[in-house]
């Protein structure tokens, strides 16, 4: 059995950790919200401003998820995996890049026209060197996420896994990430039903706010 040690969400411009709000700014645009959240969370990381929206959301969620945890003191960098899924892939950035090609294509946008870049940005920031996977699914699918995270944890190569959902298109955004461990440090049992329950914790209907 594996255990969900922590979980966090970003939806409707509200960042929650374990169901408790850690930052909210519903009146702002998504771009403003993410930049202000970085400042509010006292995170200094200049490269954040160069990231696309998908990477920024994944970055912020992981910062909140792992806050004060010192994960790599407990696990080898090669033993921590990142498994993310969403339904819009990198479409948010693809559209911006396509727009830029009408004049001069932007190299800085082009490098984010792959959905799994968000996993790379998380790994660079956190120093994680384990398995990465990114799945594009029709909708949040707790069964698929549960199954793949379990496979990764059973591989013998992974002791902890950051898994979940990071999705964005325009102002619409939906993030749910959790930290999975083999040891039970007061965590919740890892089941698809549990993921479904946590995903909907404190969540209203998804609203782009636009």
């Amino acid at each position: 059995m594996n255990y969900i040690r922590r979980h966090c969400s970003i939806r409707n411009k509200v960042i929650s950790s374990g169901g408790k709000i850690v930052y909210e700014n519903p009146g702002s645009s998504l771009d403003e919200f993410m930049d202000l959240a970085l400042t509010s969370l006292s995170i200094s990381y200049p490269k954040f401003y160069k990231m696309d929206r998908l990477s920024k959301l994944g970055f912020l969620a992981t910062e909140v998820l792992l806050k004060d945890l010192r994960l790599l003191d407990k696990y080898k960098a090669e033993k921590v995996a990142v498994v993310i899924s969403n339904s819009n892939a990198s479409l948010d950035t693809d559209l911006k890049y396509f727009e830029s090609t009408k004049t001069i294509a932007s190299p800085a946008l082009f490098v984010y026209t792959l959905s799994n870049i968000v996993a790379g940005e998380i790994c660079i920031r956190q120093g994680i060197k384990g398995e990465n996977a990114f799945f594009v699914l029709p909708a949040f699918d707790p069964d698929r996420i549960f199954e793949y995270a379990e496979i990764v944890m059973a591989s013998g190569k992974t002791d902890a896994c950051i898994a979940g959902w990071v999705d964005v298109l325009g102002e619409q955004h939906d993030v749910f990430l959790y930290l999975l461990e083999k040891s039970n440090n007061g965590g919740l049992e890892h089941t698809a039903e549990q993921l479904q329950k946590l995903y909907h914790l404190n969540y209203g209907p998804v609203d782009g706010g636009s």
Partner: protein
Amino acid sequence: MDQLMADLKRQIIEALNLKHLKPEDIGDDQPLFVEGLGLDSIDALELIVLLQQQYNIKMANPQDGPQIFRSVKTIAEYIKTTQTA
């Protein structure tokens, strides 16, 4: 030249999303890459795009990039030289 360098600092911050910086934070002679502002290879490509969009300058030889993009001052000198040529 001073006005051109001031414009360049503002344009670089905007084009490269250096939101943590203000124009006055960038020295005229400060190296832009590695030990200076820490720009990377993607930023170098964005600087080439910036020259093309803002100053209608297409770099004839990309191998000259390291010298041209050494600092705001060297970029300004390149723009001046190219526009008067």
